[in-house]
């Protein structure tokens, strides 16, 4: 079930357009943010709201690289290796993430905490090498910065487990 806040946001977003189907991609993104992926239920819900057939929503999903049908890790490491990052060590950063997390491109750790993705230009070229973890930018990366970040995120996860105090 979608939360009330998400339903309210859906209602609001649809009013922005003279043609309802314009809202498909924004609704998919906002829905995915809450649910963790594009579920069948989300597709049905959006199709109903913008008055198209569900297949028309599915058609869009395949086109946009940020939309995914399966859940991914809680922290999605999206490492840029495009030209400006490449020149400043982006590939080494990606390799380090692969080793450290023990996963490859578009894979998720067995505990569901981390995912890794090699991505195209993020628009962080003057802070290269750069990556995004979910929507947060991390720039001027070094392997030490990556190690510290992973440690911090692991601590965060542990502290949120039931019965654990930090």
């Amino acid at each position: 079930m979608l939360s009330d806040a998400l339903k309210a946001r859906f209602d609001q977003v649809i009013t922005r357009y003279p043609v309802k189907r314009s809202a498909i991609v924004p609704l998919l993104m906002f829905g995915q943010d809450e649910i963790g992926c594009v579920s069948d239920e989300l597709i049905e819900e959006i199709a109903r709201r913008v008055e198209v057939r569900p297949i028309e929503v599915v058609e869009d999903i395949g086109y946009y690289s940020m939309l995914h049908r399966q859940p991914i890790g809680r922290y999605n490491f999206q490492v840029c290796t495009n030209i400006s990052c490449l020149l400043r060590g982006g590939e080494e950063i990606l390799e380090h993430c692969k080793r450290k997390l023990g996963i490859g491109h578009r894979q998720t750790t067995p505990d569901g905490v981390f995912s890794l993705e090699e991505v195209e230009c993020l628009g962080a070229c003057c802070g290269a090498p750069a990556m995004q973890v979910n929507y947060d930018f991390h720039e001027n990366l070094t392997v030490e910065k990556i190690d510290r970040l992973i440690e911090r995120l692991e601590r965060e996860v542990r502290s949120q487990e039931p019965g654990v105090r930090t």
Partner: protein
Amino acid sequence: MSDYESYMKGSPHEVKVISKRFGLPNSASIDVYLASDGYKALKKALEMGPDGVINEVKNSGLRGRGGAGFNTGLKWSFVPRNIPKPRYMVCNADESEPGTCKDRPLMEYDPHQLIEGIIIGGFAIGAHQGYVYVRGEYRYLLDIVDRAIDEAYAQGFLGKNICGSGYDFELATHTGAGAYECGEETALLNSLEGLRGYPRVKPPFPAVVGLYGCPTIVNNVETLSNVPGILLMGAEAYAKLGTAKNGGTRLFCLSGHVNRPGVYELPMGFPLDRMIEEVGGGIPDGKKLKAVIPGGSSCPVLKAEETAGLAMDFDSVAKIGSMLGSGGVIVMDEDTCMVKALLRIEKFYAHESCGWCIPCREGTAWLKALLTRLHDGAGVPEDPDTALDASFNILGKTLCPLGDAAALPAISFLKKFRSEFEEHVKLGYCPHERKAVAAG
């Protein structure tokens, strides 16, 4: 958020028109904007009338900052008047050309300047609805622009009867979801209509048949952010900041092998060699310059000697066979493997090709496969010519410029640095990687 210090290192050569509020505390708030001439240009525009605004922008020499470099005022003048259809003003904030990161600070540090530019543009073309199409990865910017739009509504700069003028204009953001192709204006319009972002056949151009089949102007974030400043200082003063037919300033994104990578606002026509040396602080570790891509990864590469005294404006860069593009200046030192650099660029275009036009879909995949093989040492002597042949079979044969964007860098790398491609074939390995392994 971005790290301000890392992007805005500053330089005495900067001339700040659109970046003048960057770094002020709370610069994204409407209070700070109003305290520094904010929304004064809008009031002026409402008095000037649509034709007055279009002429002023035309005379300022402002050219599209997304890459195409078309005169903005002229583009606005193509919107038909006196037709019963609604008109739309769309801001292209789908920044994703590799090497380009200038629209980010414009939205992060001064979203009201952009919003004011959009309203003025909307007024000039007779639109009553506008959209800001923000790339999906820029979620924090979507939130910043949303907040700024709410503030502008609350103060009466958006909505009904703006500033008592009788003019109505509504504005909303729209998030993308990861697709370089949607930065192309007709693909963007399809995406905004809720479809896959495939390009449309031109003509008709969006100014006549655009969003929902109605006249539409699509302008880049930086282009629109310039509009308030132009109206306040006047077309002539703005034009004078740059070179002939290339008015104003430009946000250049210096990246790659420079000591001080960053976004710098420099006058149009600032020489490229001085930009690298004096603004960017030169190349790290005392290395020599090998090559520069002057305007984002789709622009033909320049050899070091071509940068000497090269005026960075649309016409001067075009004259030597490249493009000023989106302002992404990518600097490569003497140790850069040009095969690897081109391979990475072609990998990108192969990934982003939407598949609609076959020369682009097949050609980019072939280029990627061929360059991968060549870089890994399994190339054959015919490979450079085969790659050139593939590139020429993409060039000019696709609906949108993504095909050209893939072909142009390939042709320039293969022609200007041919010996490096041949060396890979001859050696059977990448000499740069062998060197790195030996040193490591």
